[in-house]
């Protein structure tokens, strides 16, 4: 029982960390390697607004999400738009921005363990005799609502549908009146906001440290590669796969093996399905 419940929590943690990355890649084909940096940036901004400027917690969260969305827009419009279509340059450019943000934060005082966000609710409850603190329940609820929002957004709204169109065939979208730069900007901005939401939900479980930014990026890439780049359904399945495997390893073998398990699963998936679990498959290639 413990494994199931903590497995779910762990999986949704991975989903929260990676879904923004998977979304931005799925739509604009831009691997946003600044993802982890945006994650930490949101956490730190919220901390600054809450404890240095004495804002109410809710307002601080809202403001930092808005700021990170604007940073996402700027990241695309100022930098990534110039290298669009050249994968290596996109990775270098976005990773460079990420490094700059993270190391700037470190330089401006984000080090040590002094920075913590308070949990939304403290305390814990028993679920099937397993103690679970409220913040981890919020992780589950937050992860599920992010997924529901994403599903609704891409199924029923015009901007969401336009993102899906551009992800599949940019030129066919262009001639239907969809501006691919606007769609990509939107995707990177939403990806950034998802990184921010993940930070606000997950960071109260630990300290805000720069290293966490790199870790989030690694997990986001791992989950996306395993699920099949560009497929957010794949990312969800991969999150569950890796999440449960990690939890099982932690409880049956030893805690420090959890990273090894993740890498082992990725290698296995890539051996048997090189394009990832839900990567673009040959059978869907255009029929003439």
């Amino acid at each position, binding site marked *: 029982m413990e494994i199931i419940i903590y497995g779910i929590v762990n999986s949704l943690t991975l989903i929260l960390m990676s879904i923004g990355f998977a979304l931005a890649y799925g739509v604009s084909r831009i691997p946003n390697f600044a993802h982890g940096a945006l994650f930490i940036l949101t956490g730190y901004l919220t901390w600054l607004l809450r404890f240095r400027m004495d804002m109410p917690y809710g307002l601080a969260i809202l403001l930092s999400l808005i700021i990170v969305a604007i940073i996402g827009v700027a990241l695309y419009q100022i930098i990534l738009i110039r290298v669009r*279509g050249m994968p290596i340059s996109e990775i270098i450019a976005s990773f460079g921005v990420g490094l700059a943000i993270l190391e700037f934060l470190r330089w401006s005082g984000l080090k040590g363990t002094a920075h913590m966000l308070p949990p939304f609710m403290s305390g814990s409850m028993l679920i099937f005799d397993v103690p679970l603190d409220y913040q981890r329940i919020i992780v589950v609820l937050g992860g599920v609502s992010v997924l529901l929002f994403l599903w609704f957004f891409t199924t029923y709204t*015009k901007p969401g549908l336009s993102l899906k169109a551009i992800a*599949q065939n940019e*030129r*066919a979208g262009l*001639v239907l*009146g969809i501006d691919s730069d606007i769609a990509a900007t939107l995707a990177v901005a939403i990806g950034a906001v998802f990184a921010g939401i993940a930070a606000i939900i997950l960071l109260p479980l630990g300290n805000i440290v720069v290293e966490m930014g790199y870790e989030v990026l690694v997990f986001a890439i791992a989950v996306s590669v395993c699920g099949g780049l560009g497929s957010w359904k794949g990312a969800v399945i991969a999150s569950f796969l890796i999440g449960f495997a990690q939890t099982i390893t932690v409880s049956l073998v030893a805690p420090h093996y959890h990273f090894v398990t993740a890498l082992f699963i990725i290698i296995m998936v890539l051996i048997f399905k090189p394009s990832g679990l839900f990567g673009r498959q040959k059978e869907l290639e255009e*029929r*003439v």
Partner: protein
Amino acid sequence: MSSNNTQNILEVRDLLVYYENAIAINNVSLKCRKGKITGIFGANSAGKSTLMHTISGLIMDMRDKEKKKGGERITWFGEINYNGENITNMKPSDRARKGLILSPERRQVFPESSTMENIKIGGYLATREQAKKTMDYVFKLFPELINLKHREAGFLSGGEQQMLAIGRALMAQPKLLLLDEPLLGLAPSIETRLAQAIKAINTETGVTVVLSEQYARPVFPIIDYGYVLENGSIVLEGSGEELMNNPDVLGAYFGM
């Protein structure tokens, strides 16, 4: 001449398109009458698709992508007038907003979206009412698609995909519909079926149609005026009947 201008929804004047130093479109001028069907015929590499890309604006996207990659330099000169407005350097999405919609070569449906979702995406520019009305029209025009609503478009047959591509383009509320080789690779019976559907769209909704084809026979009965492209230049033009009776054309483009 001014009364003539209002009748022409599209006027291309002295168009030249270069891929690096190779000329793809050589001094092409053509006019499309409002409410009519215009055909553009030519063999592979005659410049049909390049012409369609230049009219729809996709060539701007191609140029920008090539430029970033450091690939071929794509340049064009001349003038494209749409409804009396010079659109030569307008983004494709803005042209679409003005009612100039391309149904691209090889259909280009969104393969991982369902038929229904493809149609919904097509309605990106439409209001809710327009979308609903057009959707009903598309399913009336292509009843074959009704039972395929929930199937992934990548798994449809070629003919079904083409119907979907045309339906999707109609959803964008075109005033001028460009069809790039709509009959490419289809069985003869489906060719006839689609040609009739294109004619029906033209007469029932009043949309002006420009279509390009390699093989002219199936679309010959529906076109009002046609141009024959060869090596990027227009070598012949005339009404459908005039083209049909030209002995040079007979062998080369009509397969007779």
